[in-house]
C-alpha cells in the first residue's frame, strides 16, 4: 500500500501523522502513576531479602513502628490471615506475595511498611530488623535439574524435582535420523543471558479502596488492565473483591516491553494495605528493586544442531534448551505454550526435519521469564537459528548471504506450513535481504574486509534474516489463564461527527492514540484528529488481553477496522434514507456516500452521524456505534533482513557498530513515522543485550547488574545511526493487511551483531561468542588466539 487512500486532512493509513499523545508529553503533562496523588494517600516501602535463600527466624517491627508517621508493617503472617500470602502467576504456577518463614531469592519482598510520607516509609523499612538463617542457594540450573538435587519448591505437594515443565515440538526420532544422515552437522551451545526490560519508568500503583462503596480502584503500571482485574478477582474474590468491585486504571506508562504484564507482590500488598487501612496507598519501586526483583527475561541455555548437505541445503534442526525460570514460572506465556512460540526456530528456512525441547528449571533467582519485547521466546528461537546458520556457512566456507538465499522459504510456498506446525501467512524473504545488501554495499564491504584482514585489522559483517510470529492469537489455541486472546474495539460516533474509540489494549509509548485513530479514519473517513482514543480504564473500555507480543495491530487494530465497517454499513443505510435511494445505489469514497454516477448527490459520514441521532429511518435503532471482538484466524509473520558492520579494537576488545541496515516487512503500514520509530527503538534493545546488558549471580546468589551502575543501558554514544528501509508483503488474513511490528527489531538485531563479531574473528577459528559480547570477552578470545594487540 504505497499511496494512502485518504488525504492528509483525514490521515488514514499510510500517513506519517504527528502523534496525538505528544502535546501532553512535551509539556510535562503526561500522567504517570507516580504523578497521581489522592487525598489522605499513604506510602508503602518494601523490606527485601539480602539472601538468595534463607529461613526467616524473626521480623522485629518495634523500632519501625516507633517512628512517627509509620502506621503499619505488613508481613506474611498478616496476609495469611486473609489467605493472600500466595498468588498465582500468569503461567499457572504460584508465587509468594510475602513469605511466612523462607525467602527464595535475593531482593524478595519480606514485609512492607505503610507510612504517611514517602521518606518516612523508607525510614520504617530501614528500621525493620529481620533475623535470617542463611541457607545454601541453588544458582545453577544444570545442578538444579540433576538427580538428587534438593527440591526447591517444597510448597508444591507433587513436586519431586526442580523441573517446572518439559515441553517439546516436532518429531524427535525423525530429526535424530535426519541429523545422522546429514553430510554436515554444526553444533553450538548458545546462551541468551538473563536480562531486564529496564523501562525508564519502574513499576508501581496507587491502590484506593472506597469502603463506603466497597469498590477498589487501582491506578497501576499494567500493559493488560482487564486481565489484571480478572486475576485480582480470582486472588481476592474470597475477601469480597469480586470483579464488578474492581476498577483498574492504567495511566500513561513509561515503557513496558513485557515487564508490566505480570502481577508483582508489591501491587497485591498495596491493595491489601488499602483495604485494611481504608486509605489510598501508593507504592513505587526504585530502580534497584525494579532490576533485582521484577520478572527477568531470556536465560535460555540452548544446544543447537543444524544438519545440511555439502552444497549448503539445510536438512535438519535440533535444539535442546534448559530454561532457568528462577523460583517460580512467572512467564506470561499462553497456556498451551509454556515455552512460548519457541517452535518458530526453523525461522526463514525451508527445513523438513526439526525438533526442539525445553526443560524449565527452578533456581534461587527471581521468578520469570517475561517476553521482553518479544512475542513469547521468539528472540531465543531467532538467535539460535540465525547463529547456527552462520556457523554452517563458516563450516562450508560459504558466504552467509548466499547460504540464506539458498535455503529461504520461496514466495510461492506461502502460506507455508512449517515442520513444527505453524502456518506462515505471507513472506518474501529474498528481496528483503537483497535490499539490505544493496543498501549497505555488501560486496564492497567483503572486499574491504579481505584487505583489512591482510593488515591484521578486525572487521566483521553479520546478517540476520529473521521471521517473527506475532499477534496472539486465535482462540482455538491461545489463552492466558483460560481467557481467550481476542481483543476489542468499541467506537461511538457522536451527532456532530466526531468519535471516541476504546480498546482492550494499552499503549506504553507505541502511539495507539494516533494509529488507532488513523485506522478508524481510514474506514470511516472521519479525520483522525476528530477521533479520541481511550485505553486502560476497565470501567469504560471493552475487555481485552492487553498490549504485548506485538498484538495490538493484529488484534485490536483489526477490531477497530471491523467495528468501523459495521458503522459504515449502518451509515450507508442512513445515507440511502437521506438521499431517498436504495443502499445498493450508493458508492463510497473516504468520508462520503454518493449515488453511483451522480457524485454531486452525496452525504458525508458527518451528515449520516447527525441523522443517526436526529432523523434516523423508522425501524432502525438510533445512534451510530459498534463494538467488535476480533478473534484472529492466524498469527502474523513479519520478517526482515538486517546487516551489521563492526570494527573491533584488537587492543581493548571493544566492538564498535559502524553501520546497521534494517529492512523490515510488517505488511501494510498504518503510520510510517511510528513504524520507523518502533524499529529504531527495537534495534537499540537488540544492541543492548548483544553488547552490554546482563544480569548474573555469584555462587552465593548475589546479583550483578542490579542497578544502572552495572546494568548498562546503551546511551546515545554507543547507539549507532540506525538505517531503516522496508518491503511490503501484506498479511492475507488481517483486515488491513497489517502485521505486528513492535518487536521485530529486538528479535532480529542481536544475531546480526553477534554474527558480525564472530565474522570478524572467523579467520582465528572462532565459531561462537555468547552475548553480551563485552570487551573483556573479546579480549580474552583474542588473547587465547594470540591475536590481542
Amino acid at each position, binding site marked *: 500500500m504505497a499511496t494512502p487512500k485518504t488525504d492528509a486532512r483525514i490521515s488514514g493509513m499510510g500517513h506519517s501523522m504527528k502523534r496525538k499523545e505528544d502535546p501532553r508529553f*512535551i509539556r510535562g503533562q503526561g500522567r504517570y502513576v507516580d504523578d497521581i496523588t489522592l487525598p489522605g494517600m499513604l506510602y508503602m516501602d518494601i523490606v527485601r531479602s539480602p539472601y538468595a535463600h534463607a529461613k526467616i527466624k524473626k521480623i522485629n517491627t518495634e523500632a519501625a513502628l516507633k517512628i512517627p508517621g509509620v502506621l503499619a508493617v505488613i508481613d506474611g503472617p498478616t496476609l495469611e490471615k486473609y489467605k493472600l500470602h500466595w498468588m498465582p502467576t500468569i503461567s499457572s504456577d504460584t508465587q509468594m506475595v510475602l513469605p511466612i518463614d523462607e525467602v527464595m531469592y535475593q531482593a524478595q519482598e519480606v514485609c512492607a511498611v505503610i507510612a504517611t510520607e514517602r521518606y518516612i516509609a523508607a525510614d520504617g523499612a530501614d528500621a525493620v530488623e529481620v533475623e535470617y538463617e542463611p541457607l545454601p542457594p541453588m544458582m545453577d540450573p544444570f545442578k538444579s535439574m540433576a538427580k538428587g538435587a534438593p527440591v526447591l519448591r517444597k510448597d508444591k505437594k507433587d513436586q519431586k524435582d526442580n523441573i517446572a515443565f518439559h515441553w517439546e515440538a516436532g518429531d524427535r526420532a525423525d530429526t535424530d535420523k535426519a541429523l545422522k544422515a546429514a553430510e554436515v552437522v554444526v553444533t553450538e551451545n548458545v546462551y541468551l543471558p538473563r536480562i531486564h526490560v529496564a*523501562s*525508564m519508568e519502574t513499576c508501581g500503583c496507587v491502590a484506593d479502596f472506597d469502603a463506603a462503596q466497597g469498590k477498589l480502584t487501582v491506578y497501576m503500571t499494567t500493559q493488560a488492565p482487564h486481565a489484571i482485574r480478572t486475576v485480582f478477582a480470582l486472588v481476592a474474590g474470597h475477601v469480597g473483591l469480586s470483579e464488578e468491585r474492581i476498577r483498574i486504571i492504567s495511566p500513561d506508562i513509561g*515503557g513496558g516491553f513485557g515487564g508490566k504484564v505480570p502481577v508483582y507482590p508489591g501491587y497485591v500488598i498495596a491493595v491489601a494495605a488499602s483495604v485494611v487501612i481504608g486509605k489510598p496507598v501508593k507504592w513505587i519501586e526504585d*530502580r534497584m528493586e525494579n532490576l533485582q526483583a521484577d520478572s527477568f527475561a531470556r536465560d535460555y541455555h540452548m544446544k543447537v544442531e543444524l544438519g545440511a548437505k555439502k552444497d549448503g541445503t539445510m536438512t535438519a534442526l535440533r535444539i535442546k534448551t534448559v530454561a532457568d525460570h528462577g523460583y517460580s514460572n512467572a512467564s506470561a506465556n499462553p497456556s498451551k505454550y509454556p515455552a512460548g512460540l519457541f517452535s518458530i526456530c526453523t525461522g526463514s528456512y525451508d527445513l523438513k526435519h526439526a525438533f526442539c525441547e525445553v526443560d524449565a528449571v527452578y533456581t534461587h533467582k527471581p521468578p520469570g521469564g517475561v517476553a521482553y519485547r518479544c512475542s513469547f521466546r521468539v528472540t531465543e528461537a531467532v538467535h539460535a537459528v540465525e547463529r547456527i546458520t552462520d556457523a554452517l556457512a563458516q563450516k562450508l566456507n560459504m558466504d552467509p548471504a548466499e547460504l540464506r538465499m539458498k535455503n529461504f522459504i520461496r514466495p510461492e510456498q506461502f502460506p507455508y506450513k512449517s515442520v513444527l506446525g505453524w502456518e506462515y501467512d505471507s513472506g518474501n524473504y529474498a528481496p528483503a535481504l537483497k535490499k539490505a545488501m544493496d543498501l549497505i554495499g555488501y560486496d564492497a564491504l567483503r572486499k574491504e574486509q579481505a584487505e583489512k584482514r591482510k593488515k591484521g585489522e578486525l572487521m566483521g559483517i553479520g546478517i540476520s534474516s529473521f521471521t517473527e510470529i506475532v499477534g496472539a492469537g486465535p482462540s482455538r489455541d491461545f489463552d492466558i489463564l483460560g481467557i481467550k486472546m481476542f481483543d476489542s474495539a468499541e467506537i461511538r460516533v457522536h451527532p456532530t461527527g466526531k468519535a471516541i474509540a476504546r480498546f482492550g489494549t494499552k499503549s506504553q509509548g507505541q502511539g495507539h492514540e494516533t494509529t488507532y485513530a488513523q485506522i478508524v479514519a481510514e474506514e470511516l473517513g472521519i479525520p483522525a484528529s476528530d477521533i479520541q482514543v481511550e485505553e486502560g480504564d476497565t470501567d469504560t473500555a471493552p475487555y481485552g488481553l492487553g498490549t504485548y507480543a506485538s498484538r495490538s495491530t493484529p488484534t485490536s487494530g483489526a477490531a477497530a477496522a471491523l467495528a468501523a465497517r459495521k458503522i459504515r454499513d449502518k451509515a450507508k443505510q442512513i445515507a440511502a434514507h437521506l438521499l431517498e435511494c436504495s443502499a445498493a445505489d450508493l458508492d463510497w469514497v473516504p468520508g462520503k456516500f454518493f449515488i453511483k454516477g451522480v457524485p454531486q448527490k452525496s452525504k458525508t459520514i458527518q451528515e449520516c452521524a447527525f441523522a443517526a441521532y436526529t432523523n434516523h429511518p423508522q425501524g432502525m435503532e438510533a445512534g451510530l456505534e459498534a463494538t467488535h471482538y476480533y478473534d484472529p484466524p492466524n498469527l502474523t509473520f513479519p520478517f526482515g533482513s538486517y546487516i551489521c558492520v563492526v570494527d573491533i579494537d584488537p587492543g581493548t576488545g571493544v566492538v564498535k557498530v559502524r553501520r546497521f541496515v534494517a529492512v523490515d516487512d510488517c505488511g501494510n503500514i498504518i503510520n510510517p513515522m511510528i513504524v520507523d*520509530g518502533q524499529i529504531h527503538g527495537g534495534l537499540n534493545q537488540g544492541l543492548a543485550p548483544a553488547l552490554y546488558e546482563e544480569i548474573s549471580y555469584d555462587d552465593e546468589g548475589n546479583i550483578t547488574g542490579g542497578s544502572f551502575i552495572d546494568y548498562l543501558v546503551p546511551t*546515545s554514544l554507543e547507539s549507532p545511526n*540506525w538505517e531503516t528501509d522496508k518491503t511490503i508483503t501484506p498479511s492475507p488474513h488481517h483486515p488491513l493487511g497489517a502485521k505486528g511490528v513492535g518487536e521485530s527489531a529486538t528479535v532480529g538485531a542481536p544475531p546480526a551483531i553477534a554474527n558480525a563479531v564472530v565474522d570478524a574473528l572467523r579467520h582465528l577459528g572462532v565459531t561462537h561468542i555468547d552475548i553480551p559480547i563485552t570487551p573483556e570477552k573479546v579480549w580474552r578470545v583474542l588473547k587465547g588466539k594470540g591475536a590481542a594487540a
Partner: protein
Amino acid sequence: MARHKISVTVNGAVREAEVESRLLLVHLLREVFRMTGTHVGCDTSHCGACTVILDGEPVKSCTLLAVQADGCKITTVEGLEQGGKLHPVQEGFTEKHGLQCGFCTPGMMLSSVALLERNKNPSEQQIREAIAGNLCRCTGYVNIIKAVQYAAEKMR
C-alpha cells in the same frame, strides 16, 4: 530532622518552602510544588529523567538536595513553553518523533535546551555527547538527534 526555609525561582516564579535537610530537589519539585513533569527513573543519577536547568546548567535533580538549590533559578519542562508558544526543542521532538513513552522526554529536552544555549550549531557527535547522561529506552536516539538539529536550525 532540621527544617530549612528556602526560596527558589522556578520557571520565573519565586517559590518558597520549608524543607527537611534530606529532601531531594526532584521531590521538592514533584511533591511540594506538584510539578510532576520532572521524572525519577533511577537511584544512581544515570538515567537523567530528572534533569532540570539550574542557573544555566543541566543538573540531575535526584542528586541535589532542595536546600542546595536555595536562591537558584530553575527551569523545568513546565517552563519551556512561553506565552503559548512551544520552545523549538519541544516542537522538534514532536516533528521528528523524538519521543515514544514520554518518560525520558522532559529531561532529554532540558539537556538539549542547555546544549543549544551554549552551542547554536552542534554537530551530531556534540548532540550525542550532550544527551549521553539521559537514557531513552524507546527511540534509539536517532530521532532525538534529528529533533535537536531541527530546533538548532529554528533557533539560528
